[in-house]
């Protein structure tokens, strides 16, 4: 493998210093002179018709500068696809979930805005609601959207091969019901935006968005302005994890509309309670899975019936249900597959994308079911995975799943061997099994996630590399670092490709007036696609530098070598000059040459058919094997997780620190949704609406984590990279539940596995010692 000067090094993050000294500015840190504060008035019903909105009393409060309601948006609605744009910024005729926004106020301070919100009088006609997705799909349930009288937001029926025949010929077939939890992204920075609607007809916003160009298009459509008049200046982003910070929320539209009305800048910051009760969350899914195997444990067929709890609007739901279906066909060879999926509208807050989008549900179900079948067949859990795992394709070849997903590298078998050879698994029978009431167990999983997501519509990332006369470099992309470390990785790619020094690369936040349009930071796509764009832009700039050096030295351009901050003619390496000198020669050539490299990712749009389930949603796929060791207190059901070992095939770790950190963070988020986090909902009402009651892990809750890089050097990724941000959130829940099974002898099929559920199950099995 090639020796790199920058790639693969444990360099400090490019934004580290700003972050440790408190100078990284987030949306809530932005302010402008004369700025007003926005509050959203919210509905007290989960399902109700709006009869009348009276804002007159609110307008009379001293300090209130503008009040708006749903009608002010002129019928604008947004959503993922043209046919599913069913969500208004503020409810107009009907509210469909509790605390949906109905009006908003701009006032001189937050307290005044809040006080005015309480004076907005809305007359409602309360309607019966429906909150359970299976109930919503039953005939006669309350109808949430007139355009979907059966409450079916999305529906797919895919069929590959012949599952009936395959089940009939199988040695063993199991059917189980799995359910994944009601969980939220859990970013610490609440959504916020500062907006100014310039009366001359342009909008400038400073919003907390991990994919700012969605918001850019939403604002242009909502305010009927050309895109050139929408300027998003992006602050630092305090965590994203999909959903809310990809999309727009009520406050995002309201601040712009209020600024337009009041003629002043307006800011909103959602309190955490508003986040936990109204923001987008992961779909809660019910999965009826039927899996068949031969006597030797070879997969014969899967039939999967999935019901997604969609909440009140469609949002990105069509993609969620597509990904949920795709994840079953890999990373194990599957010859026959049937998928029937329904996303149900319910009167709950909106379900959308979250880290591990779609894959977390069905990979959990399939991995656990594979473990159950292994137990029934008397086959070792590692062995059954090895027998079914897809092999790493030979160079120049690719593997294609039954529904047309293709990949050129697959390190699953290597990852499984790696974790199985580690102390945690290899020594598990020699380690302590019981200590007082604690029963220890070790579990394993083998999963996959897609990287370089290609959705519908605009897919390409662009980049520009501008060489300054002193040899420093401005890297300009529309890609967003929402914390994952992509700015660092992109700067490393630019430095490596240019032959410049990492510390000479500068990258700023997105500014839609200057940076190239970028689809966004979702589906683990930034390193792959913005990375490729950066690589090509750097190559273009380098070519221009080589030409300038060639004409100065009187040699052919390909005789010029630029590496590690120096340039020299290949034949005379001793005649080297610094990158700075080279930049000067190039920039001063003629009357001020502009050395500007341009590039864009070339993967483009793959034909994906949501209705038949065929196509290829990613440019490549990561593979993860994970082991977990934990102890279960058999009296109280409390689980203490002590160790994770994660072997992750991310192609090639470009910035190993970030790859490890992403694996570690994803795994802890996965741990949390497997054993702690869940919204306690009752008729659309969220009981746990603070971080005190909605449990997220603290430093004392998390295990020791070892991350092992499985290097497959993917031919399509920049410098061989694949995704690294989401694999471990998919691999952790099944490994953890497998470990709980090892400790208790009970299979849990519903997340999260809380102490209450463990004690109940132990009692049912007569295993509870209490």
């Amino acid at each position: 493998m090639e020796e790199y000067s920058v790639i693969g090094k444990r360099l400090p993050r490019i934004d580290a210093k700003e972050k440790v000294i408190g100078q990284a500015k987030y949306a809530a840190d932005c302010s402008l002179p004369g700025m007003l504060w926005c509050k959203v008035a919210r509905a007290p019903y989960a399902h109700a018709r709006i009869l009348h909105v009276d804002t007159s009393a609110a307008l009379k409060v001293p300090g209130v500068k503008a009040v708006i309601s749903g009608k002010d948006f002129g019928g604008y609605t947004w959503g993922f696809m043209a046919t599913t744009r069913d969500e208004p910024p503020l409810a107009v005729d009907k509210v469909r979930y509790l605390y949906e926004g109905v009006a908003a106020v701009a006032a001189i301070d937050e307290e005044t805005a809040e006080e005015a919100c309480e004076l907005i009088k809305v007359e409602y006609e309360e309607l019966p609601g429906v909150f359970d997705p299976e109930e919503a799909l039953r005939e006669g349930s309350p109808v949430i959207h007139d355009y979907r009288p059966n409450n079916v937001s999305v529906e797919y029926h895919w069929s590959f091969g012949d599952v009936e025949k395959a089940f009939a010929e199988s040695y063993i077939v199991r059917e189980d019901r799995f359910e994944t939890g009601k969980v939220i992204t859990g970013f610490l920075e609440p959504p916020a935006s500062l907006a100014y609607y310039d009366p001359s007809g342009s909008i400038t916003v400073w919003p907390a968005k991990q994919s700012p160009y969605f918001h850019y298009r939403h604002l242009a459509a909502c305010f009927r302005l050309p895109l050139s008049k929408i300027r998003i200046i992006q602050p630092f982003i305090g965590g994203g994890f999909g959903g809310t910070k990809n999309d727009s929320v009520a406050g995002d539209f309201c601040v712009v509309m209020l600024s337009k009305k009041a003629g002043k800048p307006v800011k909103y910051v959602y309190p955490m309670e508003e986040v936990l009760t109204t923001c987008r969350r992961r779909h809660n899914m019910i999965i009826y899975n039927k899996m068949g195997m031969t006597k030797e444990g070879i997969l014969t067929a899967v039939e999967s019936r999935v019901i997604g709890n969609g909440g009140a609007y469609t949002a990105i739901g069509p993609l969620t249900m597509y990904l949920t279906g795709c994840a079953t066909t890999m990373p194990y060879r599957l010859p026959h597959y049937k998928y029937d999926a329904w996303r149900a509208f319910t009167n709950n807050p909106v379900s959308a994308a979250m880290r591990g989008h779609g894959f977390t549900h069905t990979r959990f179900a399939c991995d656990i079911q594979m473990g159950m079948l292994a137990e029934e067949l008397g086959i070792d859990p590692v062995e059954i995975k090895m027998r079914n795992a897809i092999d790493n394709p030979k160079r120049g070849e690719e593997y294609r799943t039954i529904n047309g997903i293709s990949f050129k590298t697959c390190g699953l078998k290597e990852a499984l061997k790696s974790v199985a050879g580690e102390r945690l698994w290899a020594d598990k029978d020699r380690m302590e099994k019981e200590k007082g009431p604690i029963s220890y167990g070790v579990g394993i999983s083998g999963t996959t996630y897609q990287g370089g997501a290609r959705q519908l519509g605009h897919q390409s990332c662009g980049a520009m590399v501008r060489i300054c006369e002193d040899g420093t470099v401005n890297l300009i992309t529309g890609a967003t670092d929402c914390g994952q470390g992509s700015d660092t990785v992109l700067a490393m790619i630019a430095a490596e490709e240019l032959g410049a020094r990492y510390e000479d690369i500068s990258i700023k936040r997105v500014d839609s007036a200057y940076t190239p349009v970028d689809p966004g930071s979702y589906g683990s796509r930034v390193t792959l696609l913005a990375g490729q764009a950066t690589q090509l832009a750097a190559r273009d700039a380098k070519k221009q530098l080589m030409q300038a050096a060639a004409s100065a030295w009187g040699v052919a351009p390909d005789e010029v070598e630029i590496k590690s901050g120096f340039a020299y003619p290949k034949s005379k390496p001793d005649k080297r000059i610094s990158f700075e000198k080279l930049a000067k020669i190039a920039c001063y050539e003629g009357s001020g040459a502009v050395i500007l490299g341009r590039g864009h990712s070339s993967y483009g749009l793959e034909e994906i058919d949501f209705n038949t389930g065929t196509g290829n949603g990613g440019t490549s796929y990561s593979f993860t094997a994970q082991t977990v060791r934990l102890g279960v207190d058999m009296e109280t059901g409390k689980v203490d997780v002590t160790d994770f070992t994660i072997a992750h095939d991310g192609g090639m770790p470009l910035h190993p620190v970030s790859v490890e950190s992403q694996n570690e963070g994803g795994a802890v988020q996965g741990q949390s949704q497997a054993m702690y986090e869940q919204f306690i909902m009752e008729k659309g009402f969220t009981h746990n609406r603070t971080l005190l009651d909605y449990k997220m892990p603290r430093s004392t809750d998390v295990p020791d984590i070892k991350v092992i890089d499985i290097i497959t050097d993917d031919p399509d990724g920049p410098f061989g990279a694949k995704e690294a941000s989401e694999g471990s959130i998919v691999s952790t829940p099944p490994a953890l539940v497998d470990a709980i099974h090892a400790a208790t002898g009970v299979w849990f099929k519903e997340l999260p596995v809380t102490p209450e559920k463990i004690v109940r199950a132990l009692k049912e099995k007569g295993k509870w010692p209490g």
Partner: protein
Amino acid sequence: MKQIRLKVNGLSHELEVKPWATLLDTLREDLGLTGTKEGCGQGECGACTVLMDGKPVNACLILAMEAQGKEILTIEGLAQGDELHPVQQAFVDIGGMQCGFCTPGMVLSAKALLDEKPEPTDEEIRKGLEGNFCRCTGYTKIIESVRAAVERMKG
């Protein structure tokens, strides 16, 4: 409105605040010290951690008036000019952050811990950071950063 005198990062400020104004709002809105973050506003997440007479506190739970006569240290006051505090430098070297939103509070909690216990065990490090949520890193790199800071401070 109440007149108060607040000592922040070694400087005294004469301020007029509402009696119910929190230390967090006063730092952010009146003094422009936005390095102190607001996450939950309820004392759970620790993003607003500042040091008051050397002890970590949630600035969202302290009234500005209660902070009178105390020494307040925010993240902006930790580095000495261009020289980062060893804890800050360790977070940079090890990569003890992702999005950075918890970082100011985390760094200050770590500093307070090491001031009290210069050579903490891993258990004590975890305990010392228990009041600060991080959703990005899974805490691993943060704990490593604190261990590295211990080494740095030993010189």
